[in-house]
């Protein structure tokens, strides 16, 4: 658990980066600090491992005042992932990951062994261990950064805009990876980002901060979207927050209907209805229009996933029928946007 008690940071140039922050980061959760630049989110993060010391107030990590601990010793017990990964270019991937164990006096052999385990944990092939960071893609470098932060198995992990320098597709993969790791490791993670979508996607709790170092709202993401504390938060979470809040509603109440299918290699004869093309394993491949032309399908959603996915599947489908699949990607049925909206309406009532 990390506790900020009335923490203020004023820099020498007179700017106040953090203003009377009171906040508790629960153990074993991912807490996201989000806000525009100058809101003090990174400063708050860096005060936890004493990269910056507060002007006033107290920060406790597991009940212990961080100001009472020698900074290098404190930092070796707290994982840190920085923007652009911050890997050491002159060390191999394996030695980068072994950094903190080596600092704390492990033998090189044991530290490298541990590093190899971590590469596997973050989903990197072992042979990458002998390469240098420059030989890795941006996404791979970030994974190495996460592995390095986890090497000494610290209970607390600080992540400072770790995924902001990679492209959106890779970023989403890294976010999923982090959630998977967290399910396995159960760390106390503080994650800083300026990207509200990222905050909502990975945060169990989100602290929205405002320029000048004020905490605007500290709540689970669903609550930020449905009950923003003020206009600033409402504006910051975005115009489509109503739609996005559907991410936190599950689609189990939406009944799927059957649909006519044709085999992927079957002839495309005309018919009065849209028919779904499926392969031998019943995985959706696209649609056959009533005039017999084959068109690509819309988004798919997994039965039991969020209702946002179900609505999007219906809205993006050329036939107007959203396609639901099971966990292995096989056709489960179809839904209409009307059905999804009815479920949303009924939940409201």
């Amino acid at each position: 658990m990390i506790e900020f008690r009335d923490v203020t940071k004023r820099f020498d140039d007179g700017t106040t980066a953090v203003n009377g922050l009171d906040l508790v980061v629960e153990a074993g959760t991912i807490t996201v600090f989000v806000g525009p630049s100058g809101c003090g989110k990174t400063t708050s993060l860096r005060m936890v491992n004493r990269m910056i010391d507060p002007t006033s107030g107290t920060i406790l990590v597991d009940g212990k005042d961080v100001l009472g601990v020698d900074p290098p010793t404190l930092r070796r017990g707290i994982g840190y992932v920085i923007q652009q990964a911050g890997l050491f270019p002159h060390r191999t991937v394996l030695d980068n990951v072994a950094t903190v164990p080596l600092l704390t006096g492990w033998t090189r052999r044991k530290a490298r062994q541990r590093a190899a385990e971590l590469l596997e944990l973050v989903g990197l092939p072992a042979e990458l261990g002998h390469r240098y960071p420059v030989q890795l893609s941006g996404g791979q470098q970030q994974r190495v950064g996460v592995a390095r932060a986890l090497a000494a198995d610290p209970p607390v992990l600080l992540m400072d805009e770790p995924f902001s320098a990679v492209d959106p597709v890779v970023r989403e993969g890294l976010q999923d990876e982090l959630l998977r790791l967290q399910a396995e490791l159960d760390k106390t993670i503080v994650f800083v980002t300026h990207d509200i979508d990222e905050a909502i996607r990975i945060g169990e709790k989100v602290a929205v901060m405002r320029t000048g170092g004020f905490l605007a709202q500290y709540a689970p993401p669903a609550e930020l979207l449905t009950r923003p504390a003020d206009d600033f938060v409402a504006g910051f979470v975005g115009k489509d927050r109503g739609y996005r809040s559907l991410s936190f509603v599950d689609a189990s109440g939406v009944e799927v209907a059957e649909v006519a299918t044709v085999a992927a290699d079957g002839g495309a004869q005309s018919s009065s209805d849209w028919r779904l093309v499926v392969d031998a394993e019943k995985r959706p491949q696209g649609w056959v229009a009533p005039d017999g032309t084959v068109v690509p399908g819309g988004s798919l959603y997994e039965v039991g996933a969020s209702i946002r996915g179900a609505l999007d599947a219906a809205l993006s489908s050329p036939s107007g029928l959203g396609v639901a699949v099971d966990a292995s990607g096989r056709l489960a049925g179809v839904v209409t946007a009307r059905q999804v909206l009815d479920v949303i309406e009924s939940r409201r009532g």
Partner: protein
Amino acid sequence: MGDLPKYLGDAGTRAALLEKLLDHVYLSLVPLLVSVVLAIVLGLLCHRFRPVNAVLISLSNVVYTIPSLALFALIPAMIGTRVLDPVNVIIALTLYTTALLVRPVAEALAAVPSHITASATAMGFRPWRRFLTVELPLAVPVLAAGVRVGSVSNISLVSVGALIGTGGLGTLFTDGFQQRYLAPIIVGIVLTLVLALVVDLVLVLLRNRLTPWVRAGGAP
């Protein structure tokens, strides 16, 4: 030219040449080693303290403009050594090479990206360890380039020392001129060149050994 086989045919001459060569190596490489250490220390001071930076960089420019012969003659007057003492040459060349290396070292340290130094600090490096194991190794490519220039410059400048009577291959030139005898001059030029090339090769190999990551480059 016909004198050359005769000149080299004499065993006494060959022994004298070897001695001069070893003297030359000693007089040029000792200053190089000392100045690498000095330049790292001074470069670190420049990097950490801005005012020191301005003073040291100007000072090193000034030192580098003093003519070598003048410096060889001035040093005994300043520190009280004998005029013919080889230490004068060693000190003068150390001054030159340090002046040459301070700026690149300071710039190489400043060029280490801040996210790398910040991540080292956040991992729990203490300042000295961070400097020796992260910042300094990253400065090696720039430092090595400076050391290569310094080694060539030292090897040629040691010859000038012969004018004030210190040893080394330069004495072959002074003797050759005095006796109007071409053979020692040619041998002196060839040995100086070979020495410079060999030392440069050794430095390149050493640099490559210290910086395998630079040539890693390439596709992921």
